[in-house]
């Protein structure tokens, strides 16, 4: 739902004032607000690749595009072959239901060598993140602010991850998945709409490599228990403590607590935050 026509026009007008290049301004959220809940079951007119190989990663991460060899020889091994130009790295981190992208922009400078992708079902919220990525990249030039991050390693797409995750990622492609403050869908009738379930855990396990981590955080205790229950029941995951991750040098939990927009809201209201992380186990032997 791209918003009511009037709102959309306003946003377009507004967007034309954002400017380009170094003077690019960061977008303002108020022009991108959208009805809170999108139905993950309905047939949105989504665009998605048929398979990961069809994905045009180059347009999302232009700084990583593989230069076409001058002599025209197509010697492109060891690189992902997208439909557009290939890129030299694969996305390794997915923030599912990234909202306005607070976590993405906090993670990107901390993991500068890793490609991070936000996935969000709401159109204009996605657009906000994309506009912000564009602005941050434009503001950065090697001469003026070489010490700041260039945000070339972060991007965002519109996607219904509950249906189409395997269209974007191959088996074992990801090392981290974030599920931050998912919509709680309190009513029992709506539990199938929750982004965590025993059966969805199989898909998360499919795109995660063994040893990879799923991070969850919520302010709703019941949802926390639900997520823990479903991941713990799933043989491909084992729960791992925050301390253990920190000992391994993982900075993500701290960032997730502080930097998501929902996390900040909860902070302001002095609410509780429940964190749970799960490690992708090796698949058991198969005859």
């Amino acid at each position, binding site marked *: 739902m791209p918003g009511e026509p009037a709102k959309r026009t306003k946003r377009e007008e507004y967007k034309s004032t954002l400017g380009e290049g170094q003077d690019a301004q960061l977008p303002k959220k108020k022009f991108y607000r959208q009805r809170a809940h999108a139905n993950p079951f309905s*047939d*949105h*007119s989504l665009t998605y690749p048929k398979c990961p190989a069809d994905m045009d990663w180059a347009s999302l991460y232009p700084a990583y595009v593989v230069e076409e060899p001058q002599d025209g020889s197509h010697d492109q091994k060891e690189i992902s072959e997208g439909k557009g130009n290939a890129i030299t790295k694969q996305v390794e981190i997915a923030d599912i239901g990234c909202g306005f992208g607070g976590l993405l922009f906090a993670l990107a400078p901390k993991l500068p060598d890793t490609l991070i992708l936000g996935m969000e079902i709401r159109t204009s919220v996605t657009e906000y993140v994309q506009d912000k990525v564009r602005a941050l990249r434009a503001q950065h030039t090697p001469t003026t602010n070489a010490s700041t991050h260039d945000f070339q390693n972060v991007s965002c797409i519109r996607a219904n991850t509950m249906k189409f995750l395997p269209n974007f990622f191959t088996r074992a492609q990801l090392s981290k998945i974030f599920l931050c403050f998912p919509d709680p869908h309190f009513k*029992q009738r709506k539990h*199938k709409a929750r982004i965590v379930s025993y059966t969805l855990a199989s898909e998360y396990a*499919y795109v995660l490599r063994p040893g990879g981590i799923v991070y969850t955080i919520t302010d709703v205790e019941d949802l926390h228990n639900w997520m823990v*229950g479903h991941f713990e029941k799933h043989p491909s995951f084992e729960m791992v403590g925050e301390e253990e991750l920190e000992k391994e040098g993982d900075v993500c939990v701290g960032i997730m607590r502080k930097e998501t927009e929902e996390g900040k*809201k909860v902070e302001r209201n002095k*609410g*509780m935050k429940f964190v749970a992380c799960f490690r992708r186990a090796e698949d058991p032997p198969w005859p």
Partner: protein
Amino acid sequence: MTLPFQCIEAYSLPTERSCEWAVFGVCGSRLVVQTSSGVTSTWPTEQYPTRSTEPADEPEGPPGKRVKLSPPADQIMNFSCLTLSNGKEHIVAITAEDKCIRVFRLDSENQLQQLSQRCMARRPCALAITSDDSTILCADKFGDVYSLPLQYTPEDDMTETPIPEESETPAEKDYKPAASVLTVHSGRNRKVLEEQMKQASKGVKKSKEPLKFKHELLLGHVSMLTDIAYARIDERSYILTADRDEHIRVSRGPPQAHIIEGFCQGHDEFVTKLCLPTPGVLVSGGGDPHLYIWDWVNSRLLNKFCIRDAVSAFMKTLTEDKSNLEDKISKTVVSGIWNVPATSTQDVILVACEGVPAVFSISLGGTNGPPVLGQTIPLTGNALDVGIISQNKEFCTAIVSIDNIHKPGSTTEIREDEGPNRLQCFSCKGNEWHEDSDVMAKLEWLNRRALGDEGDSGTDSKVTSQSPRRADEKALRDILYGMENLRKRPGAED
């Protein structure tokens, strides 16, 4: 009047000299069978109110319009799926309205006997049976796959409430709101919560009783499942599932069904049917112009075959009226794919499409080449289902269920006169299909007489106004032609 069989199944036990077989059909809410020795059986056995209470010669309008599907019972339940166990001992069926999985067998007198009925929480869409015949795999409308023991034993009933599953939560007996005002901070969450508190104060809403019989959630898609297949290659077992989006998923078989091995990605439209003609080969079809042929173990596309072209060529020979034809052809939906037991060196499948009065015989071509259309077998009505009898090594017979109510080529227009047959039989020798009048003669009861007089109950035949019949026509259409409805209409809710 006779109604068509929405599903049929056949089994055959070829021996040295002859071949024993049985053909099962479901018609509305009844299951019937006829065997090669001529024995017939109907389930349930109770007779509906007969027509004897009314004069037989009462003028009643065109018989073709008299469509009545079910006994005048409180609950209408129509069969939607029929599968035979590998050992041919059991028939497993789904009745749609009561979401029920029913297991039948033929007793020593070849009479149908229902062994168990288990009603699921969500409507089952498709079934598969593991190769050892121990387990039914049930794929449902919500996208989940459950396993149930094929043989139901009351001792297996779960006495305790099972661990919360996918769509089942811990019994909400002690209903507590899932959050408190203290823990919810965003405006929208708070609104939901307030709603919930209101409800809680009104008292606990009754949640559905958990299913008592043994069943286990194996895997799930966030999309309606359309078909499921079970395969064994060497020591490994697999479950293949297809959904209303374009996905075909390959998972490990139980007890490792939570592990996804891969996806066969390529369809542009919903997938309706999966067929595993030879080990390692999958043929899939649905709302796409093409059938896809896969090396599914390696998630690799081997070939495509344009079924829409075959349908188009055939439909153009069928009618003069080309007005709606292009539109119709663009909506071609594969409604069935059947493996033909090897009668030659080629792997052959039969394919049917919704509302098309033909079956297409296609040679898969193996690794050597692309699939080719061997033969288009024209029918006297739309193809509904196919059951195959393996007569011996050289030849097999396809029993095709025919829509004798709708006009050939249409899923909406009713015929003026009821079609002549609701079955047609074709035998295949070498690579050629010929109509088989011998088998047809043997199936006379099933073809014309089974349930013939029961379509009308005493009460219902007195209803002469148009509307109830229209409703029945719609009900019949829904039973026979549900698949085109699966096509997405994007933008509707976005």
